[in-house]
């Protein structure tokens, strides 16, 4: 009897398939952050230009637009690969549950249409459309960035907390796709957390690029252009970084109630414990965290608001239903550690800004800022590793195992290797083009983002 659409297959390269999926995500998601945040930032700058007529803002908006186009193109192709992988790597998952979650991706497809269409108009309309019309053509890009991530996260929320269907002899019956995707309370924290992460990553990377320039010329005071270019993304990233903490805490409590085994893996809790301790750092061996710093009863307090609450341990499920604990734990601690660091940078910056009405001038602040960009990308990937690897071995939580979803086709290692090579080449190309764009001569008076001349 088959439990799903297709009978079981033997796949010797499940691990490579999972790594290929992870690689594809790790490339796509940082790019997507720019799709989420950059249009809004650019529109703000253009709005400043429309209000003041100061060409400084137009220069900034146009330069960032060129970055947006380049990254959008790469976001599109990496996203296309992800869509292919739904069938190439996990055909049994899609064949069984496509009718339940597919709607989310179909609606997402329409967001991509709007995004692609208006990016075409916005980017190639600079100086050709009237200023107001041009500004207006940017608004749909911002909106579709929100709806696009909304849909894909709704799918992920469903995988983590599935509902809206019944399985009957390998077929899904009683399918209610709308209820399955949007009646699910699990995805709200994911959506907000990811959305803020988009602004954190984009803001810190952009500000970091100007911090590099600032450090090179230190201690010459920054020009008006440099100050503005650094302050706008930094202010946004700083506010988002502060807001990220409470949302992350909310996420952890949702995980505690709906996915207790993921929480146990995050915390390295081997046995069910009443009044569980929280461990910082350390390594999970033989059912407990060694070499870590224990804070008594904090885990129970954080997860359930009660220092004596009982927290479910990994021992409540058989070993083959536990995720790889150290991967999840290290990823989680990396995210939270970086989150704390980014929060610190944010508080320093906002304090100086509000108190002294200027930018910080310490060299150390700018050194930290240069690091903050790459670190926020690391936090982003770590967060997804926590969510996705923490859900293992399930692809649909408590319904379908990842090894039941995988393809029966051979040759996964070959595709994986080839994809890694192609992405490496694309990464080198993108790095090269961004450097080119950064070095392009700047004449704010009448500069234009001309590719032929640029």
């Amino acid at each position: 009897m088959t439990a799903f659409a297709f009978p079981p297959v033997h796949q010797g390269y499940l691990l490579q398939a999972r790594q290929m999926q992870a690689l594809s995500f790790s490339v796509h998601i940082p790019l997507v952050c720019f799709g989420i945040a950059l249009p809004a930032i650019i529109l703000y700058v253009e709005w400043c230009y429309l209000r003041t007529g100061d060409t400084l803002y137009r220069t900034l908006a146009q330069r960032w637009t060129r970055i947006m186009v380049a990254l959008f193109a790469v976001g599109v192709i990496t996203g296309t690969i992800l869509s292919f992988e739904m069938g190439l790597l996990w055909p049994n998952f899609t064949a069984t549950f496509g009718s339940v979650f597919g709607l989310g991706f179909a609606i997402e497809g329409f967001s991509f249409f709007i995004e692609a269409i208006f990016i075409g108009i916005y980017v190639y309309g600079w100086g050709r459309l009237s200023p107001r019309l041009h500004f207006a053509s940017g608004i749909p890009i911002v909106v579709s960035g929100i709806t696009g991530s909304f849909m894909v996260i709704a799918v992920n929320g469903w995988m983590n907390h599935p509902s809206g269907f019944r399985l009957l002899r390998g077929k899904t019956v009683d399918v209610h796709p709308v209820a399955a995707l949007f009646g699910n309370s699990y995805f709200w924290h994911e959506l907000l957390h990811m959305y803020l992460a988009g602004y954190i990553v984009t803001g810190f990377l952009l500000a970091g690029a100007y911090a590099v320039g600032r450090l090179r010329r230190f201690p010459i005071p920054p020009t008006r252009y440099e100050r503005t270019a650094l302050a706008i993304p930094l202010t946004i990233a700083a506010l988002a970084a502060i807001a990220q903490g409470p949302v992350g805490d909310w996420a952890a409590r949702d995980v505690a109630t709906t996915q207790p085994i993921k929480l146990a893996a995050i915390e390295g809790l081997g046995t069910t414990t009443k009044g569980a301790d929280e461990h910082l750092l350390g390594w999970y061996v033989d059912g407990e965290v060694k070499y870590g710093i224990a804070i008594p009863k904090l885990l129970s307090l954080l997860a359930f608001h009660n220092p004596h609450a009982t927290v479910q341990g990994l021992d409540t499920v058989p070993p083959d239903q536990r995720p790889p604990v150290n991967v999840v734990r290290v990823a989680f601690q990396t995210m939270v550690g970086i989150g704390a660091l980014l929060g610190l940078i944010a508080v320093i910056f906002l304090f100086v800004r509000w108190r002294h009405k200027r930018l910080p001038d310490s060299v150390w602040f700018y050194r930290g800022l240069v690091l903050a960009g790459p670190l926020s990308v690391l936090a982003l990937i770590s967060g997804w590793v926590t969510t996705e690897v923490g859900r293992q071995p399930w692809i649909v939580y408590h319904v379908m195992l990842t090894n039941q979803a995988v393809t029966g086709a051979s040759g996964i290692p070959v595709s994986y290797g080839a994809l890694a090579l192609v992405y490496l080449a694309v990464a080198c190309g993108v790095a090269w083009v961004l450097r080119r764009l950064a070095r392009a001569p700047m004449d704010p008076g009448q500069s234009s983002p001309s590719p032929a001349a640029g």
Partner: protein
Amino acid sequence: MHLYDVPLVFALIGLGLYAVLAGADFGGGFWALTAGSGPAGERIRDHVHHSVAAVWEANHVWLIFVLTVVWTAYPVAFGSIASTLSVALIIAGFGIIVRGAAYALRSGTSSTAETRVVDTASGLSSVLAPFTLGAAIGGIASRRVPVGNAAGNLITSWLNPVGILIGVLAVATCAYLAAVYLAADAARGEEHDLTRRFRARALGAGLAAGAIALGGVAVLHADAHPLYHGLVAGDGAPALILSVLAGICALGLVWTGRFEAAQYTAAVAVAAIIAGWALAQQPVFLPHLTIAQAAAPHDTLVAITVAVLAGAAIVFPSLALLFRLTLAGRLGYTDNAAAAPTPVAAVLSASTPGLLVRVAAACLLVSLAFLTAADARWAHVIGVSALLVFILTGFLAATPAELAQTSASRENHAE
């Protein structure tokens, strides 16, 4: 027509639009690849890039649309197709990666040598992607994709006479559509040398595509008899005839230099052949799987139909706007000829920064209380709203734009 056919019709319309629109983009890559060196070749390659740059992303999304509709409405068929044809699809995927990356990179190239490297890579992938996608369709049409998880042969399911035929035909059709489109674009810009060149290319590619299609009939007869029968004598026959007529008509229009009309007629020829395939094959989707058996449960079919219709109501007007602006030559990189805006205010600044800071801090505290300390859903709604207000007021209080003004008179911002 039944409800379970409706999403398939949407998917086929999407496939047709992908073939016509993205097909022309791929074909442009083919002409850039074969443009040769020297200033003439460079002119061709620049023309291709400028004509396609603003629209390729929107054209590409049709592929995503087809994939998502099929996996939502016909999940078992999707899983079977994607797993058996995985080799063809992954090669097509690599082609799409290189092609998209080339658009990103071209904006950074400065010398002709660099541009050529990028154009060559993009041109090769522009041949690879339509060929493999066409071959994958050949695999489905010749009934070599059984139901199951990679149940068919990974190689011969698409590398077979019908697959190769449709793959080659796809490449030739793309080249033809691109040449017609680029000739029309050049004629609109009154670039007569380019118009002439692309007219010649369109005629060559059109004749080649026609010859391949004719020869293909013999291949279908030998290798995919049910399809052959359905196309020549079955339900697909009217569509086939329409396609042949439209194809001949389009060539005539190219010959007489009416490129715009030729574009639409050529699109009809492509659309008709896709419809012919569907009509010839229905009601079979895959061997031993009819469309009715492949279809998702009723609620899903209703939901996807509503979603597509609603989406179309938004997307088609937007697409029309994009193409109207492109055709009117209103999109492209230019110097800022448009009038500068009339400034509303000379300076941006927070009116009452002290107050805003306090409001921001208060909102952060409120959100901590409702998001962290409380668990009820309504409390989280309040918490999240307070958090958003915190970000907004915090941003206003910090008005980063103000930094641009502080010493505007003394300094020059330009380097």
